[in-house]
């Protein structure tokens, strides 16, 4: 059967990479007595996948991990608690779903966008700045190719889906943005913030926002977990 964990990645653990996160989760699952199913190839690997990798340094309250487990339903009692007891500080499973059979593909293939909260202090007049940033028809950023190091320009405006100010008390800003997160069309929130700061004449390093992913959204704009509702353990 396939299970889906919704979990947080916060605190110090924001500094471990996606691959190391996968290793950590596999360890925690095994420590809690779960036996994730393995593929049957020449190099067996655990059948587990994340809906959307989280860039290093970002917090999240809504990561999704699906994995196949050999354990039957009778073994699932307390699985969340058992895993939580093994996860280090900063990671916590907040919900556990059974993936319904009518969702044939991996959760990753349904992800289209992500919601991020930006919390930072020292931005005067944030609502107006953000509004004018979103009013631009085109936003271009310099992109460095990871392998070749070659720089190229990239248009990101189509990937900036929406933004609203949740709170703005005298320079302390909490903004929620929705950014594209589909295969081949993903906007890293730190790239977005850098572009915003560039346009607004702000120093992103001095502001050093705390960025938290708060939802992984499907093409319909609803959280992916909505597809799983009713199957929560």
């Amino acid at each position, binding site marked *: 059967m396939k299970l889906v964990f919704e979990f947080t990645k916060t605190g110090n653990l924001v500094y471990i*990479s996606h691959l190391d996160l996968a*290793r950590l989760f596999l360890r925690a699952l095994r420590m809690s007595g779960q*036996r994730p199913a393995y593929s049957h190839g020449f190099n067996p690997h655990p059948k587990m996948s994340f809906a959307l990798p989280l860039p290093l340094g970002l917090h999240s309250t809504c990561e999704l991990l699906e994995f196949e487990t050999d354990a039957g339903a009778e073994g699932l009692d307390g699985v969340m608690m058992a895993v939580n007891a093994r996860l280090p500080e900063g990671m916590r499973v907040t919900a556990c779903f059974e993936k319904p059979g009518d969702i044939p593909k991996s959760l990753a293939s349904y992800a289209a966008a992500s919601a991020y909260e930006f919390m930072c202090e020292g931005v005067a007049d944030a609502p107006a700045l953000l509004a004018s940033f979103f009013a631009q028809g085109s936003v271009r950023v310099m992109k460095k190719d990871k392998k070749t190091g070659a720089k190229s320009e990239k248009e990101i405006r189509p990937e900036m889906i929406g933004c609203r100010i949740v709170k703005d008390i005298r320079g302390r800003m909490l903004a929620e943005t929705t950014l594209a997160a589909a295969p081949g069309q993903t906007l890293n929130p730190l790239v977005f913030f850098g572009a915003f700061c560039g346009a607004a004449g702000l120093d992103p390093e001095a502001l050093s926002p705390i960025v938290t992913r708060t939802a992984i959204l499907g093409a319909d704009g609803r959280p992916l977990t909505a597809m799983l509702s009713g199957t929560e353990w």
Partner: protein
Amino acid sequence: MKREDYLKILEAHGAPEHVKRHCMAVGDAAVGICAALSEAGAAGLDAVAVRTAGYLHDIARAGKDHDTAGAALLREMDLAMPEETRLAAADIVERHMKLNFPVGLDGIDSAAVVSLADRVVKEDRFVGYEARMEDLLKRYEGVPEVAARVHENMERALSLIAQIEAATGRALREIVTGGRVDAEPLFMKAERPGRYIGGEINSIRKEWNGTPLHFCFAFPDLYEIGMSYTGMQILYGLLNAREDTLCERAFAPAEDMARLLAEGGLPLFSLENRMPVRGFDIVGFTLQYELCYTNAVRMLGQSGIPVFAAGRGDGDPFVVAGGPCCANAEPVAPFFDLVCVGDGEEALPALADAYLAWKQGGRRDGRDGFLLAASKIPGVYAPAFYEPVYETAPESGTGAFPVFSRYEKRYPELPDRVGRAVVADLDAAFFPERPLVSHIESVHDRVAVEIMRGCYRKCRFCQASYACAGVRKRSPGRVKELVFAGLANTGSDEASLLSLSTGDYPGIEALVSDLMDELSRADAALSLPSLRLDSLKGDTLKKIAEYKRTGLTFAPEAGTQRLRDFIGKQITEDDLLRTLDICLPLGFAKYKLYFMIGLPSETYEDLDGIAELAGKAVRRAKEICAARGGAYRFHLSVSVSNFAPKPGTPFERACGDGEEELLAKIYYLKDAVRKVKGVGFKYHDTRMSRIEMLLAKGDRRCAGAVLRAAQQGAGFDSWREHFSYENWLAAFEGAGLPAADLYADGALPLPWSLIGPGKAYDDGAAGGAEV
């Protein structure tokens, strides 16, 4: 209630990430201020109310009027504390936004402590009051009468801070952060920041202030190297098992992090509490290989600890060396207050006891008082107490250059020879059941259980074998217990058995066979480094082959039987070919042969022998494959390292080949092996080996060269891309030392003669144990 309990409450109330972090930071700050004030004699502070209010002060920040809303929540909450304390905490939360600071320190109360903590922490970091004043004044720019009142309150707060600093004799930053290094801003800029964050599965973070002895285990190489080192796992667990001791870890920061620390003016810090390494009582370096010496020196510099033991004073830690290189720690002795020879799990608890006794006794006789007490522990010596004397010995071939002649003891009661700490019984000795799990993939990502210490074989070049006092075994029952505890507590799916020569473990066949059966039921695998497969029977091999068909290694070390006999390596050509007979049909297709060149008495005939042996293996493999009618699947590679004579071994006076000689031999061998078709050839950097030898066999004056090399940028010398031979040669020259082996002559006294034999444990098993 513990710190984590408050975090859970915040989580349960849906506090967003930034609020949680802020609350925890303010709570920590309030606890620090409260403790400092109480220590300085302030009365009337309620530590639990301060703690509770501090950690929960913004619990309702997501909504409106969060001060009153938060107080209301606390008044309803069920907390593990007296009701009046909880209500007091609620009152503090209610007042924390609008509190008027008292004029003098006498007027300070719990609420003022929490408010002050809140005012000096921005988000989750200490920024100081002045930095926050600007933010606050900006908020009330348009409302002059409020701004005036705020300003007045600020003046009182500033005066209060000055009074707190005067009364406690500590800067507010230090009180609030507890001296912690604020390294987090660097993590986003560092490569692989997982190396520096701590908090791994099974890591142990104890309360700094509540623990009498602070021990820092320093590993002079990268995190991912150090985390695979079983010795660290043992000592970390052993020391943390003591209630009076905390043991934290520090690794050599990678080049980029070293630069970031320097730029930020931050010292090297421990992973657990992020305390400066300099703030520990004892800093213990493990010296695993000579080429890490420069890293150790650099780490001392990065920590702000005076590099030479002689330069350290009352505020500095004691810096201790341990590990295999302590068979001759003299080349780095001036950097260390103490050197521990032998088994750390014997020496370190005794050292901890000695330290605590010295500290509780009012640090009698200053630093020397502790060093003298420590000198009574078997295997422990203070280099400063043994002054080497150098004299010229023209007939030794060293010319007019003075060489080591003897040590002069500073105190008559010191032993003439140091000896070695020895663990007598591995079953009774500590071994971790909860090994740390590296955050990032480390070199050996598996549960390693040591089954035997020492080696029966005593190959004459092998320092590890001679540095161990006899052979000690762990019983099969205990080994199994540790394997399964380790797997259960780490979630790992691979275990390995560790020893210098696993095949010599009495009863290895049964142990491996049992373990493989039990492990496969648990979806786990067994890996067997340094296991000679010819020591196993077909059934066990079949089991190994069923789930693991990775490469096999074989270490004849020399190409001819003559040389193998001379170096004491008990392997014959037949052993190798027989292994092929058994293992090739089982599906093992990849083989690696290890050899050493530059061995004493070696001739080019011995080099030819290496190529011949490879040729014979290839021919035999062809025969085996042809006889079975299957396809020819056989990969062989020959890997050659350079012999470097090591102190404490029968070859300690051998001088080893020079760099050019070694290089000539490598080229010769490369040609010879190339003629055998289908065999790969790998060799080791000859220049690295040369420096390794110089550092292994050096006397105390070598420290000058090590320091110079480190100052000129040497570090991570065992990483080829970092190693600079020219830099090392310049360092030796600069230190006024010949870059040559001074101790090859048979008649010269040896600098490492200070290290005497330990007690031998002869259990009468194969070959016996000699020391």
